[in-house]
């Protein structure tokens, strides 16, 4: 019997996923208990509050009572239609590829009047509405406890991860407050809106990076070089943008140029890994070293002396009309740097590409069992070249999101290991684009939090280094808890040869 090597059978997996649901439930419940305990300990005199306010000052015209009713009715109607359209799409025999677009339009249509109505009626209240943190903490704690207990009891596999993620975010939030508990800061405000907005923008590079990893690994090639692709993308984009001095169109080109340089590094990886069948991880590491050296050289030898080549203004912020007016969520999701929208659209596009198109089907097949693809006439190396170069392109754009996006100048080391975190996110997101999106947001949140905590550093009871290390610690915890439980593409990282 060859049991010593029989590792992943279907029945194992199934047992594992049930076990995971229980473990997730228990973890969620523990988070809940911790939160309740912490909040019980919160100094009663401490007026830590969560503030929902946004700093936007645009105000809407007041509407008369009749209009309010009409707007509300329209909103509810559209919301109803969209709910039917999204849940009953199949019954209406909407074309499969069209469903997504229909849903998006329906949701947008529904949200627009609702946001209008909310803005008119509650934004004013919300903006000045502050809640004592321990109330929120207790509520969240109890909710986590209930949800976790229920999950552990019923062992639902579906929704288990979502529950855990939600609990984790709540946990981090309460942790933040708890940390500040012993400090003398009076009137510590958590500006929820700005915290979330920062999370989203911090998640942008990670979205590009993890998408890149997802595409490459789906085709069976491990792309460790994302970090390097970030670096060259960041540097080439900022140099191009400042050389042409920030005219609108030149910025678009700057971003694309970042992508092209990323793709170039991708091709290098592809040639080494596919043509010469070198070990993909080693090639990837070497490419990072190469990119790191070349960007360091250029920044010390060129950018240092030509500062004018290393300055760009931020990309325009684009506020979606209407939707950006939703209280709290509006500024977070719909009032952002253009690249944020590009990243989200990219997630949607890659998902469609992988799961709806011919190319995607073939790429996935090549990552699972290349010999089978070869027998039906699909060229393994062609698919892999395509995927790795596209992956490099996306990672390069992610690099541009470090510099041209927020308008920072390039400095060596600014990528900060995010290229590796992106790989962890890819695993966390189970090699799926939407998973990568969700996981990126979670990591973005931890990054935003550690940045936020740094503001109060002087009063904090725990060392600064710990706070800065938080995103990385979460990475390790997340991946350690998941690896081996989820199934990577079967041929991931294995060179293919027919004979």
């Amino acid at each position: 019997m060859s049991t010593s090597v029989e590792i992943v059978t279907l029945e194992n997996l199934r047992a594992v996923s049930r076990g995971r649901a229980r473990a997730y439930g228990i973890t969620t419940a523990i988070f809940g208990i911790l939160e309740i305990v912490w909040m019980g300990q919160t100094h009663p005199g401490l007026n830590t509050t969560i503030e929902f306010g946004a700093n936007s000052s645009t105000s809407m015209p007041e509407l008369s009572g009749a209009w309010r009713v009409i707007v509300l009715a329209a909103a509810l109607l559209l919301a109803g239609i969209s709910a039917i359209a999204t849940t009953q799409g199949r019954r209406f025999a909407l074309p499969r590829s069209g469903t997504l677009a229909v849903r998006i339009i329906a949701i947008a249509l529904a949200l627009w009047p609702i946001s209008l109505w909310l803005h008119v009626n509650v934004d004013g209240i919300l903006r000045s509405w502050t809640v004592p943190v321990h109330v929120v903490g207790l509520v969240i704690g109890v909710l986590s406890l209930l949800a976790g207990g229920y999950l552990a009891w019923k062992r639902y596999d579906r929704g288990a991860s979502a529950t855990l993620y939600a609990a984790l975010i709540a946990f981090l939030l309460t942790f933040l407050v708890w940390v500040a508990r012993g400090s003398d800061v009076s009137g510590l405000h958590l500006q929820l809106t700005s915290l979330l907005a920062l999370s989203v923008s911090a998640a942008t590079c990670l979205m590009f990076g993890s998408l890149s990893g997802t595409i490459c690994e789906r085709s069976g090639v491990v792309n460790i070089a994302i970090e390097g692709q970030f670096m060259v993308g960041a540097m080439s984009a900022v140099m191009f943008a400042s050389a042409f001095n920030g005219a609108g169109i030149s910025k678009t080109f700057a971003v694309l140029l970042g992508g092209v340089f990323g793709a170039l590094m991708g091709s290098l990886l592809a040639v080494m890994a596919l043509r010469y069948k070198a070990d993909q991880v080693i090639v990837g590491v070497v490419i990072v070293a190469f990119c790191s050296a070349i960007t360091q050289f250029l920044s010390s030898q060129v950018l240092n002396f030509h500062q004018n080549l290393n300055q760009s203004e931020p990309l325009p912020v684009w506020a979606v009309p209407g939707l950006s007016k939703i209280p709290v969520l509006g500024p977070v999701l719909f009032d952002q740097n253009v690249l944020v929208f590009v990243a989200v659209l990219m997630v949607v596009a890659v998902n469609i590409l992988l799961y709806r198109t011919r190319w995607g089907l073939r790429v996935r097949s090549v990552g699972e069992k290349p010999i089978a693809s070869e027998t039906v006439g699909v060229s393994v190396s062609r698919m892999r070249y395509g995927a790795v170069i596209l992956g490099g392109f996306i990672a390069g754009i992610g690099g541009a999101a470090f510099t041209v996006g927020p308008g920072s100048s390039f400095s060596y080391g600014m990528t900060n290991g995010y290229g590796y975190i992106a790989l962890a996110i890819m695993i966390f997101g189970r090699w799926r684009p939407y998973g990568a999106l969700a996981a990126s947001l979670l990591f973005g949140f931890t990054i935003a939090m550690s940045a936020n905590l740094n503001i109060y550093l002087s009063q904090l009871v725990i060392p600064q280094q710990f706070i800065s290390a938080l995103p990385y610690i979460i990475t390790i915890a997340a991946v350690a808890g998941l690896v081996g439980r989820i199934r990577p593409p079967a041929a991931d990282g294995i060179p293919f040869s027919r004979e």
Partner: protein
Amino acid sequence: MRLELRGITKSFGSLVANHNVSLTVEPGEIHCLLGENGAGKSTLMNVLYGMLTPDSGEILIDGEPVTIRDPKDAVARGIGMVHQHFMLIPVFSVTENVILGDEPVRPWPFVDYRKAVTMITELSQRYNFDVDPHATIENLPIGTQQRVEILKALSHHADLLVLDEPTAVLTPQEADALIMILRSLKEMGKSIIFITHKLREVLEIADVITVLRLGEVVGSTTPAETNEEDLATMMVGRSVNLVVDKKPAAPGDVVLEVRDLLVEEDRGLTAVKSVSFDVHAGEILAIAGVQGNGQTELVEALTGLRGVTSGSVILKGYDGNLAGAAVRDILHAGIGHVPEDRQRHGLVLSLPVEDNLVLDQLSDPRYHGRFGRKLRAIRENARTQITDFDIRTQGPELEAGSLSGGNQQKVVIARELSRELRVLICSQPTRGLDVGSIEYMHRQIVANRDANVAVIIVSSELDEVLALGDRIAVMYDGKIQGIVPPTTSREDIGLMMAGAGNAATSEEQA
């Protein structure tokens, strides 16, 4: 399509797998290719399909010389192939597997899944295949996977269809259905190359039979001019005893006692429904039944590969319940297992043959000493096994994956029989073996029985069940319909396999 192979030679290192092989297939002809395990049948077909590049030789299609560089060329020339080891992607659905490489797109570049599903439903109805286009391959039993492979080849509208041992994993009924399909394809003017080790099928369907031995064509004949014995002799080069001779069993005490075993399959439905039976030392209990009636789950439960919902498995001399025990304990208790799917559960394809031969004994003091593995002993063991079991390999250090299908099976069996056993459980022990090797395996199994091992055989081959079994348990719908002596008629057993109860003749019933 008229296909001609001229003087094909292909070697792997020093091994000549095909030597100057020539073969002609006329349009509308069913051409059977026979040969021992490792004779080079698959190699020849892989050359034809562009998976391997021949060292020399020519391929002519309709009289024109063609070069087939890769499978894509082969597909473009109208050649379809069902490979010996499935070329299916386990995590994909049936639909995705069938359309891969030739996807309906509308509008470009979106795959038109709706059209694909319709196409597959139509195709499977036309050929009377019962497959769900939405099912995921890895959840399907191996026989259904085979049907998907055949559907895939049919959907490409090939003019020449190569089938490499398609019936090895099919039930007799499924095999008959496939033979009907091949006949109708032949009437449509398609040429077919059919590889099998089942001589009865060959005689039933072939127009022309070509026999390969050690990489060379040893002869060509037609069913009218030959019979099973002659074919066997031609293949192996000596006369083969096609019936098992064995003395009557001398059963000893009960060794394995299975009581009220309840086992779930992957989807959580009960697959083994309260099964009880005993196996005595020195007897062969054959479990017959149409595939998918719980045999797989029963064996997996007995060997620790699958959890048990309730019930007990008591091995004499072992303290406690073996049901749900760790695989290591089950192995140490003296249970050997030849699994149904050799590539998935039986071998590590990327490890050398010699390591595969000691996989379950890695920490045995014979092969593992204080300073690590005893490489010389492992090599020595491999040499002996390779000679004893006639495993055709260039050497013990070669990857197991490079062996021919039948020789991979021999490695698994050799390993399992190389240990002191109390119970031997074999699932489809002779799947994919040639007649000569089957003869040898059967003799080994009987020898083990005579050495007082309790043997359980699971087979969908009624012939094998009748030939080997001292008692025959028929499984239907997760239950044992009855346990009957091997003198029972084929018809009666067939009826029991179809679900008709047979309490009158059964010796024991839970």
